[in-house]
């Protein structure tokens, strides 16, 4: 006699299970299938092509009513089961019921709704089943604003689908990069770039605070205050296993319905599979393990031995044009090695994670054809030692050319500027080379490229090599650090010409060889980016050395020194009292006068810093930036105000310069001196910029040094006018900011580019001088602010102390 099998839920997992079960034993079971949705089984993975209009519902059906009927299955579609009676082994639906010998629960999952105000407004939808999909299509999204909350697989497919139907789409994602469960930051960056190129706006690090609107959704408000207009809000933040029936009948339920290896629940007559189950603490959302479960459960029901063992599964995003592949574990870890391949020109990123000569993780973006081959090697645990050298190039590639270091230059458009001094673009150089200029000197002679400051020589040579092929051999410039072969100068230029505005963007587009850079390149990149894009780039504190991150100088014992700014070295009794009070209050072990006419409080504990800053701020004192690659001090003498030899107001000029320049970040520290007469009491002629006042005006000299090297300044300009002196000095500092290599003091930089060139830029060419000043002012509109005030607020102050104090628990 046939046994009675009742299945709740006609989804992909139960459909596959019934296939296996009935193929093996067509006559063993009487099957009754209940389904809440009024239809059979369709391929949920294909919902996004339906949403985007690339497919219709009919094309994605896998098991329709006819399929079930042909196998003698009693279909109760549109008839949700409301109760399971375990004692009498029956289920009841809204219309009737059925007895069972074996029951399979395959109720799937429900979308997770984030609990924010406005979540129940009309216009807020989820993206999970065909109804949701139709709701979005019928809402007629064309020309409307849509916001998708959640930048995971489903969210991005929903976003792409709506964008394809003509909506203006914004994706809000809580994490720092998209699809963080499947992608590392580099691949996440590329994905974001591709989506943005198709007009989808992406807001990472965005936490939704509320959905705004009166009668229906109108906008989405984020915690950071951003508001995006939204006619339609799609929540795609995750799923929750549908366990209500199992709960009501007191089966064992954790996050999902708990099953054993044979897919049996805590009741031996009841089984479960699909997204509603939890197996060994794990939930399942991807289709491959669900199909494995289907196979196992079919065997269990046929009373054969079978065990469900989840395997690593691979993910692909089904968004046309965004080609990504992810499988396994791609976090860094002990004993793990990376093989990274980047082709910036084509937006390709591939990363294999190896452990013990075996692939344990794969992330690919841009070109994923070899994904399944890598995935196969990973699943099989193949020893890859033999093919390690060429592994990343895929199965078709054994031995051949290596990563092309010229890819970034090759990808530049002809109008990209290569030589900033002379305004020479790539196309001009290519034309010159094709016209017969085959040596660097010849190119310089006919285009002027790299003929002035010379720092773009490496790039010009790369353009020549790209044009000439192997017949050209250039002297290879030294790379910035072990992470890249590009020189500092090249990186600076490419940041500008390629419009790179973040550290991950630079690392990807310029083919960084490491995953997250190192302590050497990260501070340099951070400076180059903030100097190039003062308004767009946000300073990355974690890429700064400790002193700049903590706005104080670390000492050998881990304490810090605090130096308040004293404009031009001038102070007041009130300021001195505040400094003395702070020194007492925080038990400062040493108070010292510095070489730059400031007072240094040495030996301050980190957790005291914000409190001390707040106290000093209250007395009108701000950070002296004694720790920064930036403007340090302007040292002055008393000048004509008091000194009987003084010719000009050197103190006043020093204060004016310091108030103008403070807060700016520079490639290395910058110190100024202003002396009121040629006796030079402020020792201005060994500073980065020195002014010596004379009867007829101001002598400006630059590029001095009084450190490991000792060097007198060189004369830059003389002017009778204080305003012009200030303008020239500002332009010099800005030129240094724009041109110098990170950690080159001005004297080193001037030695490389030549003082004559600097003079031409900031003294002789007045338009250029004014443009430099304007760019400096723009940057200062962002950076001329007191970090002490910013970091001693009630929210920031606690971050300076320990995260936890376990010694207190020990005492208890």
């Amino acid at each position, binding site marked *: 006699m046939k046994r009675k099998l009742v299945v709740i839920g006609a989804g992909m997992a139960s459909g596959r299970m019934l296939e296996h079960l009935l193929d093996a034993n067509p006559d063993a079971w009487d099957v009754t299938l209940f389904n809440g949705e009024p239809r059979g089984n369709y391929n949920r993975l294909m919902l996004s092509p339906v949403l985007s209009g690339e497919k219709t519902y009919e094309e994605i059906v896998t098991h329709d009513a006819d399929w079930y009927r042909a196998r003698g299955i009693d279909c109760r579609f549109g008839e949700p089961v409301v109760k399971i009676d375990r004692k009498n082994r029956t289920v009841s639906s809204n219309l009737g019921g059925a007895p069972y010998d074996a029951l399979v629960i395959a109720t799937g999952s429900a979308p997770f709704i984030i609990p924010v105000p406005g979540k129940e407004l009309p216009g807020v939808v989820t993206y999970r089943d065909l109804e949701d999909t139709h709701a979005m299509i019928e809402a007629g999204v064309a020309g409307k604003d849509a916001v998708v909350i959640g930048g995971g697989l489903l969210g991005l497919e929903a976003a792409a689908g709506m964008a394809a139907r003509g909506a203006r789409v914004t994706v809000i994602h809580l994490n*720092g990069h998209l699809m*963080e469960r499947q992608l*590392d*930051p580099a691949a996440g960056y590329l994905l974001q770039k591709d989506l943005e190129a198709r007009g989808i706006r992406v807001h990472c690090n965005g936490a939704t605070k509320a959905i705004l609107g009166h009668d229906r959704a109108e906008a989405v408000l984020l915690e950071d205050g951003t508001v995006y207009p939204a006619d339609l809000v799609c929540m795609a933040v995750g799923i929750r296993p549908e366990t209500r029936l199992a709960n009501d009948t007191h089966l064992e339920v954790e996050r999902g319905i708990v099953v054993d290896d044979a897919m049996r629940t805590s009741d031996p007559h009841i089984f479960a599979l699909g997204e509603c189950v939890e197996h060994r603490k794990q939930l399942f959302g991807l289709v491959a393990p669900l199909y494995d479960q289907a196979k196992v459960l079919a065997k269990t029901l046929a009373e054969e031995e079978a065990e469900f063992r989840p395997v690593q599964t691979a993910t692909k995003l089904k968004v046309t044009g965004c080609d990504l592949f992810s499988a396994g574990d791609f*976090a*860094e*870890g*002990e*004993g793990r090695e990376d093989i990274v391949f980047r082709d910036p020109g084509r937006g390709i990123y591939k990363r294999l994670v190896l452990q013990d000569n075996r692939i344990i993780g794969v992330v690919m973006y841009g070109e994923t054809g070899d994904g399944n081959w890598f995935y196969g090697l990973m699943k099989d645990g193949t020893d890859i030692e033999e093919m390690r050298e060429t592994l990343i190039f895929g199965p078709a590639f054994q031995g051949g050319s290596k990563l092309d270091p010229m890819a970034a230059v090759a990808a530049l458009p002809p109008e990209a500027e290569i030589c900033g001094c002379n305004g020479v673009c790539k196309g001009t150089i290519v034309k010159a080379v094709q016209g017969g200029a085959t040596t660097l000197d010849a190119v310089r002679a006919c285009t002027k490229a790299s003929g002035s400051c010379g720092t773009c020589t490496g790039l010009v040579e790369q353009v020549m090599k790209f044009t000439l092929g192997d017949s050209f051999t250039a002297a290879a410039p030294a790379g910035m650090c072990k992470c890249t072969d590009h020189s500092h100068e090249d990186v600076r230029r490419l940041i500008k010409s390629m419009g790179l505005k973040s550290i991950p963007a630079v690392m990807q587009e310029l083919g960084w060889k*490491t*995953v*997250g*850079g*190192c*302590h050497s390149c*990260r*501070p340099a990149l951070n400076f180059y980016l903030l100097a190039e894009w003062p308004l767009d780039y946000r300073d990355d*504190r*974690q*890429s*700064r*050395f*400790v002193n700049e*991150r*903590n706005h104080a100088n*670390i000492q*050998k*014992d*881990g304490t810090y020194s605090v130096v308040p700014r004293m404009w031009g070295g001038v102070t007041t009794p009130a300021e001195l009292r505040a400094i003395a009070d702070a020194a007492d209050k925080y038990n400062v072990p040493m108070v010292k006068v510095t070489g730059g006419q400031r007072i240094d409080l040495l030996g301050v504990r980190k957790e005291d810093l914000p409190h001390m800053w707040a106290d000093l701020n209250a007395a009108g004192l701000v950070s002296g930036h004694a720790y920064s690659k930036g403007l340090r001090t302007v040292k002055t003498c008393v000048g004509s105000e008091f000194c009987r030899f003084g010719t000009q107001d050197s103190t006043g000029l020093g204060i004016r310069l310091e108030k103008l320049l403070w807060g700016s970040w520079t490639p290395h520290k910058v110190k100024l001196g202003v002396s009121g007469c040629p006796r030079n009491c402020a020792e201005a002629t060994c500073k980065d910029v020195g002014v010596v006042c004379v009867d007829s005006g101001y002598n400006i000299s630059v590029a001095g040094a009084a450190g490991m090297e000792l060097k007198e300044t060189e004369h830059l300009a003389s002017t009778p006018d204080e305003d012009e002196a200030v303008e020239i000095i500002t332009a010099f500092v800005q030129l240094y900011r724009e041109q110098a290599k990170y950690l080159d003091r001005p004297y080193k930089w001037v030695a490389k580019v030549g003082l004559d060139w600097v003079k031409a830029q900031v003294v002789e060419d007045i338009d250029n001088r004014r443009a430099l000043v304007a760019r400096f002012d723009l940057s200062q509109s962002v950076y001329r602010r007191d970090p002490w005030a910013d970091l001693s607020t009630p929210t920031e102050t606690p*971050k300076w102390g*320990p*995260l*936890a*104090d*376990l*010694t207190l*628990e*020990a005492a208890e």
Partner: protein
Amino acid sequence: MTVFVDIGPLDAIPQQGARVVKTAQGCVAVFRTADDRVFALEDRCPHKGGPLSEGIVHGTSVTCPLHNWVFDMNSGTAQGADEGLVRTFATKVQQGRVLIDATLIRRSNAA
């Protein structure tokens, strides 16, 4: 089996940064990587005692702020030409909270 104790929310540690936990066995630096993994190391460079918690975090390495020794955070071993080892402690992240090896509550590591 390792017993863990809660030390605070993951969000309190900046990505590619660290926070310090005071223990009876000395300060411990708790690091968070760019991909949100957490490591705990003794906050003391074996070279000259520098606070590793103030170093630049890159990948799963940290560079000591005083003299640029680089340590692998998985094992605590110095990289490159330098030789040295710092103690590491088990951590885990659960529901957005960071947990650390509870033996750190003890007064000494032998207890």
